[in-house]
């Protein structure tokens, strides 16, 4: 369903993603782990047409990501690391706009929105402006929105960051079910290793833009002769702390953020 071969992304002299190859099968829950700045988000941005790879090939749902952008875009849903909902629209209007942009059949739009908003427990708040929502509620809305067009592939970039245990539980339960029922492929990143261990069929660990290892949690532990995924992870990536290496792309973003905080 997803196929990356010799994927590389350079920002000037800095190589964010360095010759990565992997394959994700249909219906698989696949975790992409790595310290800050390892290249996870850059990889997702390339898979979702937001960034062009410097070299290498990407296939998603059998489409060439670089050449068949629109078909690729129709095939996936994404929940970004940062919020991406319109605060000045209501929850329902955000969903509706998404349905229109993804060409969801008109007759099904209302019922799908109702089903998904009910599922993430926002149906009662459907006519409230999103700016009145908490961070967790916005995240739930984004998840519902990402699923609205029945994507073949769902990308979740640190989807549970800052969510309470109840919401995390709900999210993984739902995503797991969908993967099973609809044969949806899920690629996610997280810093919570227990989440990866509990939910992912296979795990890839990347660091400094390189793919270190790929396999089931059990395989990773066996390979590193450790007894928890966390120990395996630390064994592979080392214990030193990382200053996130910023890509030029992210430089202004962080500036933006600090500006917003001022």
């Amino acid at each position, binding site marked *: 369903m997803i196929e990356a071969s010799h994927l590389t992304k350079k920002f000037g002299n800095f190589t964010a993603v360095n010759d990565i190859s992997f394959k994700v099968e249909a219906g698989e829950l696949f975790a992409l782990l790595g310290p800050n700045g390892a290249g996870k988000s850059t990889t997702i941005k390339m898979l*979702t*047409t*937001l960034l062009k790879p410097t070299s290498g090939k990407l296939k998603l749902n059998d489409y060439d990501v670089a050449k068949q*952008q*629109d*078909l690729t*875009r*129709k095939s996936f849903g*994404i929940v*970004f690391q*940062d*919020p*991406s*909902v*319109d*605060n*000045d*629209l209501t929850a329902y*209007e955000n969903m*509706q*706009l*998404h349905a*229109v*942009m*993804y*060409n969801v059949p008109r007759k099904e739009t209302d019922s799908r929105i109702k089903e998904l908003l009910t599922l993430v427990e926002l149906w009662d708040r459907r006519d409230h*402006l999103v700016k009145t929502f908490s961070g967790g509620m916005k995240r739930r809305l984004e998840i519902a*929105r990402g699923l609205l067009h029945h994507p073949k592939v769902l990308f979740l970039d640190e989807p549970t960051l800052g969510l309470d245990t109840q919401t995390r539980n709900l999210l993984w339960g739902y995503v797991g079910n969908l993967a099973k029922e609809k044969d949806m492929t899920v690629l996610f990143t997280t810093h919570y290793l227990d989440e990866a261990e509990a939910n992912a069929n296979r795990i890839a660990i990347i660091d400094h833009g390189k793919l270190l290892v790929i396999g089931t949690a059990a395989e990773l532990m066996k390979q590193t002769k450790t007894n928890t995924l966390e120990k395996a992870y630390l064994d592979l990536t080392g214990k030193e702390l990382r200053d996130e290496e910023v890509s030029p*792309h992210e430089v*202004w973003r962080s*500036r*933006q953020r600090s*500006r*917003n905080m001022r």
Partner: protein
Amino acid sequence: MRIMYYLWLRQIKRYFRSKSRIVGAIGQPLLFLLALGYGLGSVYKAAGQGNYLQFLVPGIMAQTVLFSSMFYGAMIIFDRQFGFLKETIVAPVSRLKIMLGGAIGGATTAVMQGLLVFIISLALGFRPYNWAMASISIIFLSALALSITAFSSGIGSFVQDMQGFQAINQFLVFPLYFLSGALYPLTHVPTWLKIIAEINPISYTVDALRWSMLGTSRFGIIHDCIALAITLIVLIVFGALRFRHIEA
């Protein structure tokens, strides 16, 4: 079409939900009308030019539409900061549709602001010479609005922050406005100013508005229309080309 309609609708909804924006955008033109209209009115009359408020109102309407339309570019920057831009640019929708849907929405709200200023002007004593003719000015206001929202979407696609955007406003849009003949007649100005005014698309908008509302024109309505059409086409092409390369 449906996509563009919903992106248009998004702008309209956001406009009506932001009361402060409506009121705030009225403040500046109202100040201009009161301070200049009454402040310079007697001097203008003494100089034998007639009623300054009559002369000023089309210029202030153009001003309102111009700056409201420029504000649309700032909305793109906000969309980027608040993340919504990502949602639109990973969608399987052509960038041209996204750009045009939003720009037409922004232009619609800008024209509404212009009409609001028109109503205020009526309360202050402004009278168009012919109501049927005056209604034509909506076409000119729309052309200006769409040109500028297209332009500002182009600017918003590569200017990354509000500071940069404000700089373009200060160094490009304000001069274009003040050198356009919106505030003073171009009959007795120095030659350099006349030349600038004659290559300035805002001059032609203001002139077309005066033609429809006052029945007087400096450049002739045919020239005005040609200038407005060229501006519209050039700026839509500019906006569409820049917007294609937009990055979240």
